């Protein structure tokens, strides 16, 4: 069983878990994902790759506590284990020299955009990085991103840090400056990816997004992760998770992500009140 080397809180609702999975880390490429199962009764949950330490075979997973499974994940101590961690799954993100390339990370999406930024930088791109969150205490990976970006921007919705406003404001400024941008990749909440894609469309800049629909097996067998891209239905697990943002039906994705809203809420509240839940009261209040 994969060993958890560390599992620490990095924000009001965010945790960082380091898992030792040498084979997976050796094979994984930026943009791919993994599926984790915490215990025997647990769900199979897809998780983005938030970092790959190839030397030590360690995978970084940044996760937000939004439901029972993520809450359960916080209870695993350093030195503990998770039941399964399967992958790498999905297709890797395109890596090419486009000239100027922009990565946009919102909320928890700041994590998976980082290995992509590393790969794009290494491919010789001039890299602009824009990260954003509701508030300063939710931002993370700032130093990591800064270290490789040619230009770096942080945004907060409440103005507590960096630009007061949305990642799309900064992106618009860059596009309006007339600088030729070869490629944009955006990862974050569905609404953020939708806003970014709508913004860049009239500028004609290719904009890719990484989608996070619900999944079960992650190998193409169940079809639960289907997304509408242009006129076709795609399976995010085998055809994605990256898709052309100008063609994605984001509203459908939002609706499908809410398919089990009621059940998930009930299961989460049942867990929060159980003795197995070790979340601090402050976190409980926040997630409720």
């Amino acid at each position, binding site marked *: 069983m994969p060993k958890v080397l560390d599992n620490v809180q990095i924000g009001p609702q965010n945790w960082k878990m380091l898992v030792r999975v040498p*084979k*997976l880390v050796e*094979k994984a490429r930026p943009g791919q994902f993994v599926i984790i*199962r915490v215990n025997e*009764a*647990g*769900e*199979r949950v897809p998780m983005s790759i938030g970092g790959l330490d190839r030397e030590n075979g360690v995978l970084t997973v940044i996760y937000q506590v939004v439901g*029972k*499974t993520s809450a359960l994940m916080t209870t695993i101590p350093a030195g503990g284990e998770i*039941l*399964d*961690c*399967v*992958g*790498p*799954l999905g297709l890797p993100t395109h890596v090419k020299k486009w000239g100027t390339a922009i990565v946009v990370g919102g909320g928890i999406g700041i994590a998976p955009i980082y290995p992509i930024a590393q790969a794009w930088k290494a491919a010789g791109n001039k890299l602009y990085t824009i990260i954003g969150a509701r508030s300063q205490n939710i931002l993370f990976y700032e130093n990591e991103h800064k270290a490789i970006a040619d230009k770096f921007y942080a945004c907060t919705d409440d103005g507590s840090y960096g630009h007061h406003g949305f990642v799309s404001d900064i992106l618009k400024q860059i596009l309006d400056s007339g600088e030729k941008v070869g490629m944009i990749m955006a990862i974050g909440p569905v609404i953020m990816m939708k806003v970014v894609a709508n913004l860049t469309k009239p500028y004609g800049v290719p904009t890719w997004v990484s989608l996070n629909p619900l999944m*079960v*097996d992650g*190998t*193409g*067998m*169940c*079809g*639960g992760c*289907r*997304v*509408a891209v242009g006129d076709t*239905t795609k*399976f995010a697990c*085998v055809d994605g998770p990256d898709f052309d943002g100008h063609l994605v039906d984001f509203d*459908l994705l939002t*609706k*499908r992500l*809410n*398919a*089990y809203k009621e*059940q*998930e809420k*009930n*299961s989460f509240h*049942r867990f929060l009140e159980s003795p197995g839940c070790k979340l601090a009261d402050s976190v409980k209040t926040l997630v409720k």
Partner: protein
Amino acid sequence: MADQKLDKKDRMKIPRTSMPEQDPKERIHNFSEVPRGLEIEMAVTEASRCLSCAKAPCVSGCPVEVDIPGFISLVVERDFAGAARKIKETNSLPAICGRVCPQEEQCEVVCILAKKFKPVAIGYLERFVADFERENKLTQIPEMAPASGFRVAVVGSGPAGLTVAGDLIKLGHKVTIFEALHKTGGVLVYGIPEFRLPKKIVQAECDYMARLGVEFQPSTVIGKSDTIDELFEMGYDAVFIGTGAGLPNFMGIPGENLIGIYSSNEYLTRSNLMRAFDFPNYDTPIIVGKNVAVLGGGNTAMDSVRTSLRLGAENAYIVYRRSEAEMPARAEEIHHAQQEGVQFHMLTTPIRFIGDAEGKVIAMECVKMQLGEPDDSGRRRPVVIEGSNFTMEVDLVVVAIGNSSNPLIPQTTPGLDINRWGNIIVNAETMQTSREGVYAGGDIVTGGATVILAAGAGKKAAKAIHQYLLTKKDSLVKG
């Protein structure tokens, strides 16, 4: 009471035993197995109906050529474990095949008793002896050949992969089975529901393989973590690909991505593998429909519709574009579904799904069909009756219209030939693919088929892999 000294005429007078089953009214509220299995005396009596005829057409009716008269005569002699071992000489999975094989179109349809009477209940007897052996812990480790020094990688732990592994390990080769999911058994665990094939039986078969020395590596997606070529680099001498059905097909009609429309793969995987029927004790949720329509007429459609009843559906419908005569499901499954109150809408097909503001399916518009000229499959082609549109109120739809092949391995294996549907092309005798040392069988080759056909393909492949390894050994010695 059965008596070995009965003459032919007396034997023919014995009526075919019927399988004791859970009452339909009770069983739609639980996931326990529907047929309870034969009692000892029932089995012995049924076995005594077999005429042990010289021709034994049943043997050639069986895709893996089980010595049927041989095992049945051991039942008459009350050597039940011996009978199970007799079957296992050619079929590694009798407890499973005794339950899910379509005997009525294989061994039993050709039984000479079937001409005038009802055929011997071969499937019931197979299940009986396999259960007897397992429940009484009489399973034995068979004779194993000395270690050959060769290693074989088997990709997929469904019926094809388990058969290949079971055969090759006995021949002295080291075998590793790679499984993408966290549990082994493939379609036997994620697809076929508990009420038709209890998971403890599949587990027992996998445990038996492990006792023989087969190594299992679950949660490993070949094609992603390692490619077929990398398996050879890791020191495997041959590879068998038995990755199964692959990507689910959808209708391709408007509204199909609404919430509440599942592929049968997803619906059954949630319920069977992830145990969503026991939510929230298990964390995976499932949508419980009041009015459930299952599209399709195969065994998977029957499994899905019967699952929906057990999860609490008030109305469960099978919606099928042809008529009952063309349904590919086993007669027994259709019968069970009917007993349980499933409503059959034959010669009907949906043309669009209608959703509410939240994107949940609330209805589907259908048209009625009539049967026209025969098509490529030899079945009469259904043709739309113009103006026959009507709307069905549904809040859950399960699409069970088959699968297309999974691309993960063909995409990452240069030189592996596939046909236009993406199925791997093999030599029908040896199951060898276009790549040396690479064999394939089961649904990834044939498209959606049955457990026993997959097992049959596994048998052929194991034989050919063994031959291949022997030749390799010769050339190694000579080289």
